[in-house]
């Protein structure tokens, strides 16, 4: 996949944001925003989970790896979790993820966690719009393109190594080609 997928048909870049919303509060709030005909940016793609506690850190990392420019997690307010405390578990992972993605070279602002109750359709609108603005400021993340670039660099390196060893044992470069890491995420 290439970076062109984040472009609109007229060629302008526009962010793509993957959102993980819990079924009981934030997903319902997004439904409420719909029923109330609130208007917000169309860059968001919501994936429904039963609880923000289900958000596996791998989901977030995978979304970035596959081309998301931002990831939004929505859960119930503290004390309001349908499953008592799943949102607290999510908060812990979120704080870990913030540090982790920073280490990976991803701006921490590309990841956001918000508590949005079933009644807060307006907050969905505001948070999505803010998130889109923030990510627009940060620009494209383009991890898939970077993977391609890194693959090329690794391949070039491998070829270089093979060529320098080629004087001794020719024709083994095909088998020595390193496997690219991002294709084996699960």
């Amino acid at each position: 996949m290439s970076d062109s997928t984040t472009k609109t048909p007229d060629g302008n870049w526009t962010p793509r944001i993957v959102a993980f919303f819990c079924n009981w509060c934030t997903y319902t709030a997004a439904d409420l925003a719909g029923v109330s005909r609130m208007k917000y940016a169309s860059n968001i793609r919501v994936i429904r989970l039963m609880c923000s506690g289900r958000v596996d850190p791998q989901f977030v990392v995978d979304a970035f790896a596959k081309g998301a420019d931002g990831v939004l997690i929505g859960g119930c307010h503290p004390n309001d979790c349908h499953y008592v405390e799943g949102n607290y578990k999510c908060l812990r992972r979120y704080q870990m993820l913030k540090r982790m993605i920073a280490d990976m070279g991803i701006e921490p602002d590309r990841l956001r966690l918000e508590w949005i109750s079933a009644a807060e359709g307006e907050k969905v609108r505001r948070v999505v719009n803010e998130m889109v603005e923030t990510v627009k400021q940060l620009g494209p993340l383009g991890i898939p393109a970077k993977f391609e670039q890194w693959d090329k660099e690794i391949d070039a390196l491998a070829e270089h190594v093979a060529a320098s060893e080629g004087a001794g044992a020719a024709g083994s470069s095909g088998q020595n080609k390193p496997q690219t890491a991002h294709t084996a995420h699960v």
Partner: protein
Amino acid sequence: MNTMETRKNEPVRIGFYVCHCGVNIAHMVDVEAVAKYVATLPNVVVSRNYKYMCSDPGQEMIQRDIREQRLNRVVVAACSPLLHEHTFRGATEAGGLNPFYFQMVNIREHDSWVHTDRLEATRKAMALARAAIQRVPHHKPLEVKKVPINPDVLIVGGGIAGIHAAITMANAGKKVYLVEKEPSIGGHMAMFDKTFPTLDCAMCVLSPKMATVGSHPNITLWTYSEVVKVDGYVGNFKVTVRRKPRYIIEDLCTGCQECVANCVFKEPKFPDAFNLGLGKRKPVYMPFAQAIPSIAIIDPEVCLNFKKGKNPDGSYTVSDKCKKLCVVACGDRKAIDFTQKAVDKEITVGTIIMATGFKTFDPRRTPYYGYGVYPNVYTALELERVINASGPTEGHLVMRNGKEPKRVAIVHCVGSRDENTNRWCSRVCCLYSLKLAHLILEHTDAEVYNFYIDMRTPGKSMEEFYNRVAEEGMHLVRGRVADVYPDPNDTASGRLIVQAEDTLTNKILKIPVDMVVLSVGLEPRPEAEDLRRLFNLSCSSEGWFLERHPKLAPVSTFTDGIFLAGCCQGPKDIPDSVAQAGAAAAEAFSLIDKGYVEQEPNTAFVLAEECSGCKSCIPLCPYTAISFNEETKKAVINEALCKGCGTCVAACPSGSIVQNLFEDQEIFSEIDGVLAPLPQ
């Protein structure tokens, strides 16, 4: 279950259907383009668009395609799954497939209704559809779990809504627990004098129903009690109710009120809550004449036999300083017990009806109306008590100074339709203001002014009521009152000037009146937030309990098995409260009579061969559903206890816990799908 599932290694054949929803989706999403795009995706055999997928022809189309095209997966892009997932799972099952071979795509609430650019909305619909198309091949056939339902019901709140729901359920043979916070049931309705539009007396209509509740063999009535703990889920709620001490043993009290007559306080001297402080009562008292249960109560704050002030735990210490003439008067009945303590009762019920009502707006928040400053400013509820034959003045309309008012101003929309206080219309105030105006005219020769913003009298017989009352000779002034202040020319009599702009004549009016009545709006109860937490409900931004769907599920909540009745859901009049109570009872009844509740099979399970026995998951489960098998050294999930949040799944370091319906591979496919390249 069906023939399709036996064909294990059959290739995936998906049917995709995108709904126009009339124009709701089609006006913003190019549904034909979406269907065309999806038709190009792997495994898709059929891709159609249709005007109303949820209609019978729409559902039949799915069933026909399953049979004729040998589909084994179904994806529908339409409204929110919270609305119609159930419908389409049903259609999938009717077509001969396991219902969980279905996936729904929300392109209405999450797309067409919230976006304004048709091209972008269409692309979003394509991305979301693709996610479902990539997800659904991973779906597994699942069985809905059936859990037996406890037939008993808990009703919280003993106002007219709670009373009506309780009687309805009890008459149908169900065991009802009715829990009321106050010492008597009756709620606000018991305080009213007459009711619009029929002008029948509130108590005449209400007291027979209250008496029925008190004597019904199927109703356990716990007044002066509060719910303190709720555990469990639909069909099997474990509820703890705290019965506060009234210092009178309910089973022994006969309601004779000898104790009240013989109290050492010869005259009533403490403000009477039922009459909003306009009347007085003794430390031992009956809440009001028609109270149910007809049992006295002692107020330990003022009774001489208690030490002053509460203990830190909320209890009171007996001082034993009083002559206790009440105990003497009670005699052999021995119903008075100064050492009574709060008792917690634990009950198990299958369904719960919330009927916790409202509070009236406190007009001290609108200081320009002078409530609490000028004694002749009353709230409408206070006027109800003053005008009521069993009220503090026995129905004589006199003010605090003992005089009958000659001119009365009724101010509408106090704490309603106001940016500074509450923005909503409280729905009942125009009508009760007209009723009060009628009652004032009936009781006195006073001149009555109604100051209104708009006269809102919707509902059956309401406009007729307005026309009838308006002809009785009252002034109707269209204008919001700006100020109430003492008449500078007559400071001694307590006369007030009501200032407002008559917006029909564009004149500023300054009307001198003797009495001002504030038509206060309805607000959520202050404890609604605590109740919401306790029962795991949602509230609207105003604080009213949120119904599951405003039109299609108006008495259901997001917590299965809990229903709403009356004003806790929003302002409404008595007929609507009663109707809603009946609806809530019917909903609860339909659950109970089915005999079981179906549980979404989204529970988690451990892949024993993968589990490393690290125990990380065990402390994460709030339901203690995960245990550790010491013999096999593996974690085990008790499916009966698992609620399906998936928190343990996300935490398992070896990826050996799987959540049905939300398997890792299903989510990863969705992530991949929403981010996949789209046609330009």
